[in-house]
């Protein structure tokens, strides 16, 4: 059957056709255009596939309820799929096949020592760094090769990167102006963000007339007014003094909770990581070591590096001999399960095992109770409790140990104390692979 070709309809003007490619071009009937224009919102109307994003004026009225309406404007998942970055002229990847899924509205912290690739990972997501292999997806949209401006991402830089020639207001409004957001809406959004960040009194100032903490808040504000799909923060607190850092830490965490925007946060400070993140991703030498909740990371570190990196003072980690019952610490034997023993002997374990126990997971005992004898050389009195540092001879070498103890049982320097890790509170790792067993 030959079908008649459909009569060609005179094509109505696509209203938001000039905007970014991500917006679906919707064809409007002339009467709809008329109504929308009358409501003053043509420009504000852009549809993301499947969900309403920016139709605030139309749907919420213009009473100023643009900012944070939790769950109303779009949030997004982020996934790194085998994303790799190799800097030109180097062999070793700065980020090596990173696989990471970040949930909608999640606060994920990337943590690791300097040079571990955490900032590079963040910049790859922002589009400021090329992705050599693999891909990055935001909401299942492949953004690997998109320029930064097409990714709908806002970033807070370590040095804030405020525009020095613009006032606080202009700094915050810049991105909105570029998107041709109507003036009064810019005004409402900037003022609202300024109110959230207590910046109202500084809107007319240039960045150079602000303190470090205020600059940091402006950088935050600049990200907030954008209402992006994803927030990126690259060590935003590292330029603040200790007290302000603690304050701002909780402020940022609170703000993120309130806005519910997916956030990726880079830091080298494990306390920041543990206190702020819903989940924490630990990286080393461009390789992701473990992603887990702070609790899980602390209680079940997957390998020796994570075990040593998370926690302060660091876990006591020693490589010792195995016997049929467990790990031998001189006079002390830490019991291991049958499975652990088998796993420790596999994969080139060489009858050795790496055992770790946290400073707070051991007790000071009397000499008769069979603890490990330690010669105390430093006692840190922290007020609530005390850290005891000392040496002990283990398998012929002199090893350093840290124990956290109650203040009332604080030993003196030079004294010999006996420590005993609590049963079931120690961690065991294969001596060759350094993986948890």
């Amino acid at each position, binding site marked *: 059957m030959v079908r008649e070709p459909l009569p060609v309809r005179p094509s109505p003007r696509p209203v938001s056709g000039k905007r970014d490619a991500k917006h679906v071009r919707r064809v409007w009937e002339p009467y709809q255009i008329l109504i929308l224009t009358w409501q003053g919102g043509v420009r504000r109307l852009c549809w993301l596939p499947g969900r309403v994003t920016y139709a605030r004026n139309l749907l919420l009225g213009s009473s100023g309820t643009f900012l944070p309406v939790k769950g109303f404007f779009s949030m997004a998942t982020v996934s790194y799929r085998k994303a790799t970055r190799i800097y030109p002229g180097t062999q070793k990847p700065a980020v090596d096949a990173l696989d990471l899924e970040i949930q909608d509205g999640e606060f994920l912290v990337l943590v690791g020592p300097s040079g571990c690739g955490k900032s590079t990972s963040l910049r790859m997501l922002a589009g*400021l*760094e090329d992705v050599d292999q693999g891909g990055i997806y935001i909401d299942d949209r492949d953004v690997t*090769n998109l*320029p930064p401006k097409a990714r709908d991402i806002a970033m807070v*830089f*370590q040095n804030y*990167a405020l*525009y020095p020639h613009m006032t606080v207001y202009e700094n915050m409004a810049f991105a909105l102006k570029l998107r041709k957001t109507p003036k009064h809406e810019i005004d409402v959004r900037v003022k609202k963000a300024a109110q959230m960040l207590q910046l109202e009194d500084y809107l007319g100032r240039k960045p150079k007339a602000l303190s470090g903490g205020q600059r940091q808040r402006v950088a935050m504000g600049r990200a907030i007014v954008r209402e992006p799909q994803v927030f990126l923060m690259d060590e935003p607190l590292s330029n603040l003094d200790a007290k302000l850092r603690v304050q701002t830490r909780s402020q940022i965490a609170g703000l993120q909770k309130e806005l519910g925007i997916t956030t990726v946060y880079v830091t080298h400070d494990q306390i920041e990581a543990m206190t702020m993140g819903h989940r924490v991703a630990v990286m080393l030498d461009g390789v992701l070591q473990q992603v887990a909740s702070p609790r899980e990371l602390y209680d079940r570190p997957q390998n020796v590096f994570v075990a040593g990196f998370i926690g302060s003072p660091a876990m006591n980690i020693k490589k010792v001999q195995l016997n049929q019952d467990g790990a031998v610490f001189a006079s002390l034997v830490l019991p291991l399960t049958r499975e652990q023993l088998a796993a420790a002997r596999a994969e080139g374990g060489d009858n050795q095992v790496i055992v770790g126990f946290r400073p707070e997971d051991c007790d000071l005992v009397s000499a008769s109770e069979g603890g490990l004898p330690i010669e105390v050389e430093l006692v840190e009195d922290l007020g609530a409790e005390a850290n005891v540092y000392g040496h002990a001879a283990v398998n012929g070498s002199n090893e350093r140990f840290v124990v956290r103890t109650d203040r009332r049982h604080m030993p003196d320097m030079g004294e010999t104390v006996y420590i005993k890790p609590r049963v079931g509170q120690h961690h065991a790792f294969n001596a060759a692979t350094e993986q948890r067993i």
Partner: protein
Amino acid sequence: MRHGKYPLLLAFLLPPLAIYGYFVVSPYAQTFLVAATDWQGLSPDYNFVGLDNFKRLWHDEYVWNALLHNVWLLLLLPVLTIALSLFLATMLNVGGRGGRGTVRGVRGSGIYKVVYFAPQMLSVSIIGVLWTQIYDPRGGLLNGLLRAVGLDGLAQVWLGDPNFAFWALLAVMVWSNVGFYVVLFGAAMQAVPRDIYEAAALDGAGRTRTLLRITVPLLWDTIQVAWVYLAIIAMDGFAIVQIMTRGGPDFSTDVVGERLYDTSFGESKFGYGSAIGVVMFFLTLSITVLALRVTRRERIELS
């Protein structure tokens, strides 16, 4: 050191100051005197004529014609040169995004830098001779190129046609100056923290927006200096004109400097020539002051 300070300072300061005073300042001063005479330049005789030279100057249409060309240069040369150098410097230093966000120059920017800077290493006379050859109506490179691509109709007697000569000279001036400002602006751009450009990229600014909204305001101090330099070059323009056209054809490329030279050394009217020189001095001075005033702005602090 305390007591011997001043003799030592003076020993270093005085000789150069004396030389500067004798060879630069005193001729300037003498010019003011000569401008009030009818000195012919060759004989030692002259009469004081007061402000007659200046009155005559006011009614001299050739001087006005030359001044008009200077004004055109003053309007066009800085704008064109600065715009072009800003564009090139942006491309060389931060423009090469290739669709990505990384802040770097376009591919091969090192080579381009050398190429753009090359004219700066030639003396003005060589530039003049070089471009006279390029503009040569028969064997010149420009017409040769136009004919080679079949645009015979566009081939012109570039320096011989009053309609084109001025623009031909302007092009040479822009060409010879651009390289220096590309380097100047490039150095200033390198001083801007990269993350400001990255923030702009994330905020959604393309190349043009970044240039206009970020780079230009941050480089304003440098641009201002460039503007003053170029304004002074535009008020002068003598060397290129003298070498390439001597103000012709039909005075279509005449500038005040050329008029001064012609009047003094060509027509041997040194008194009148000096009067032109005095006027030029004040014009340049006031334009410099004006340019610095107009472009003055609050100093921006790069973090």
